[in-house]
């Protein structure tokens, strides 16, 4: 009996193709647009996120330049240079530090020429000496091959490096092995032990070469100086307090006036990501606004179509009633029919839109088609399904009300309707 009713409904759906298509299209389009929109929003978010470096998000970076105030008899415009002993002092005097590391640099911003070569290929890339723990901060680097530097490399002064993908592109033929090869930096031969990709600065952080600090200082004669100190807080201790305390230690050790705003440069990732988070919040708000608008438009659309399609069937309902159909069966039939059509159409809408997003992902991955600020659009299935249920529910209600009316009017009046 149920199967027979279903057959009757399927038959009606099949015989009223235009009505079915219109009803289905309303739902299909609503879901299709909503998923594309939410997916695009997610893509936008990931695009912005991908321009971040691979650092952990709560790291604080310290570097030093010239003083801007005289202090304790020392002149203005005095260059401050951080040293490895600053690290020791910070470690001893400041509590609540999780990772403490440092980097020293050749090339790029120092305008020192750095010649890097392998066989007959060469290029100029910034080379960094990095202290133990550094890669716990650059946590999200993506290693294509080999491994990151570890503390043993540091303690044993190993002459090893990890290089970015852009460096490998310049020095090695495509698909040639990189890890295990020797490259020459300013005449010193070092072994490549890792190949990484870092999305920071839109991928320019992949133009770097990293080496253990101890070996670096010995090899390139930088003494005990370092350029940057990186710190992450232990859980529970605040970035603000660390900034204050570490600044105090550094000011004290380098005779910097407490009022000097220039001598120490401090970059607090947490503060920066807070700004980004605010941007994301705004983007999200906008997406939800447009998304709910699309959903509302879909709801109005589907309601209209359902009301019209039931109106159009008033005569049919009248005839069916005259021939002995109980009112409840009329309502049930229309409801089942609208549910079948809307669920199927919504499902198709989901498949098509998610398919389209995946297709974009596939091509942008394989063809290397990368757009700034747009990456890997995807949709939260839970949200898509909720949206679908809302549309189906509204469609059912929108069909139910006129169906209920039609089922209640006398068959004579219903049959007279044209």
């Amino acid at each position, binding site marked *: *009996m149920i199967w*027979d009713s279903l*057959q*009757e409904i399927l*038959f*009606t759906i099949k*015989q*009223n193709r235009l009505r079915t298509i219109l009803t289905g299209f309303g739902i299909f389009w609503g879901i299709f647009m909503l998923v594309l929109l939410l997916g695009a929003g997610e893509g936008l978010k990931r695009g912005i996120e991908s321009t971040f470096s691979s650092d952990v998000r709560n790291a604080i970076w310290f570097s030093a330049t010239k003083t801007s105030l005289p202090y304790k008899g020392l002149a203005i415009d005095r260059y401050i240079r951080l040293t490895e002993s600053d690290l020791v002092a910070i470690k001893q005097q400041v509590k609540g530090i999780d990772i403490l590391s440092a980097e020293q640099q050749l090339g790029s911003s120092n305008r020192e020429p750095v010649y890097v070569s392998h066989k007959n290929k060469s290029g100029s890339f910034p080379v960094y000496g990095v202290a133990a723990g550094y890669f716990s901060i650059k946590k999200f680097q993506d290693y294509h091959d080999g491994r990151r530097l570890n503390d043993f490399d540091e303690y044993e002064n190993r002459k090893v490096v990890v290089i970015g993908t852009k460096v490998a592109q310049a020095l090695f033929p495509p698909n040639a092995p990189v890890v295990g090869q020797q490259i020459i930096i300013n005449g010193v031969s070092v072994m490549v032990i890792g190949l990484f990709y870092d999305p920071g600065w839109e991928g320019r952080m992949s133009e770097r070469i990293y080496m253990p600090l101890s070996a670096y200082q010995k090899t390139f004669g930088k003494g005990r100086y370092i350029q940057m100190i990186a710190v992450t807080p232990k859980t529970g201790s605040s970035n603000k307090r660390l900034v204050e305390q570490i600044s105090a230690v550094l000011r004290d050790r380098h005779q910097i006036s407490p009022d000097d705003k220039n001598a120490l440069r401090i970059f607090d990732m947490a503060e920066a990501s807070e700004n980004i988070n605010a941007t994301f919040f705004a983007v999200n708000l906008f997406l939800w606004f447009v998304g709910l608008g699309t959903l509302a438009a879909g709801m109005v659309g589907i309601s209209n179509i359902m009301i019209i399609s039931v109106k159009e069937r008033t*005569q*049919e309902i*009248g*005839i*069916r*009633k*005259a*021939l*002995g*159909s*109980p*009112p*409840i*069966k009329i309502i049930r039939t229309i409801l089942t029919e609208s549910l079948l059509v809307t669920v199927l159409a919504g499902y198709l809408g989901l498949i098509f839109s998610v398919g389209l997003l995946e297709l974009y992902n596939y091509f942008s991955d394989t063809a290397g088609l990368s757009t700034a600020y747009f990456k890997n659009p995807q949709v939260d299935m839970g949200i898509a399904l909720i949206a679908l249920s809302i549309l189906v529910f509204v469609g059912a209600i929108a069909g139910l009300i006129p169906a209920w009316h039609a*089922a*209640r009017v*006398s*068959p*004579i009046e219903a*049959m007279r309707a044209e």
Partner: protein
Amino acid sequence: MIFLEDIHKYYGHDASRLHVLKGITLEINQGEMISIMGSSGSGKSTLLNILGLLDSFDQGQYHLAETKISTQLTERKAAELRNRFIGFVFQSFNLLPFKNAIENVALPLYYQGISRKNRNYQAEAMLDKVGLGDRATHMPNQMSGGQKQRVAIARALITDPKVILADEPTGALDSQTTEDIMQLFKDVHAEGKTIVIVTHEHEIAEQTDRLIWLKDGNVDLPPAEVMASAERS
């Protein structure tokens, strides 16, 4: 078969209330073929709708095939009684346009829960009987008015109802087709079915056993010219 006593029907409420049927008393016997006539607004369609349980009445007694019909009849119950007891034939055929002849004829059996195979088999046999065996799979828009009305009659007969109610069944047909359809009604009548035809054509009324004339919501004597034409036949 059908027994009406003092049936009243009003339309509207209070001041604008219209008294359409003013106490109709009527008996229709098993196997009778009768016609109902009357000028427009006399209440003949309303009476037919009440007979067919398509409309309620406000007052009076109605027995249909030993079943007492209440003034408070629920739509569910009415639908069930219509399905079992009554076959309808309408002026405008009222076939479902998206179903072919067999499916239209089989529809009442669907509401009796009879299997698709079984009801289509019965419907085909019924179409054969009304002379449309060769049009069984045609859609309504592929058929002439006479053919559509035959399908409608087949549909009315499919549940083997107690009574066939026809509302101006030949109103939309030309005279030749009208004759054919009336012949079909007479054939059905000859098999013992009770048939009630509402019409405004004397030629139709003349072919029935008995004429009920309605005037202003009452059963009345037919006017002289109607009597005369009835006597001529």
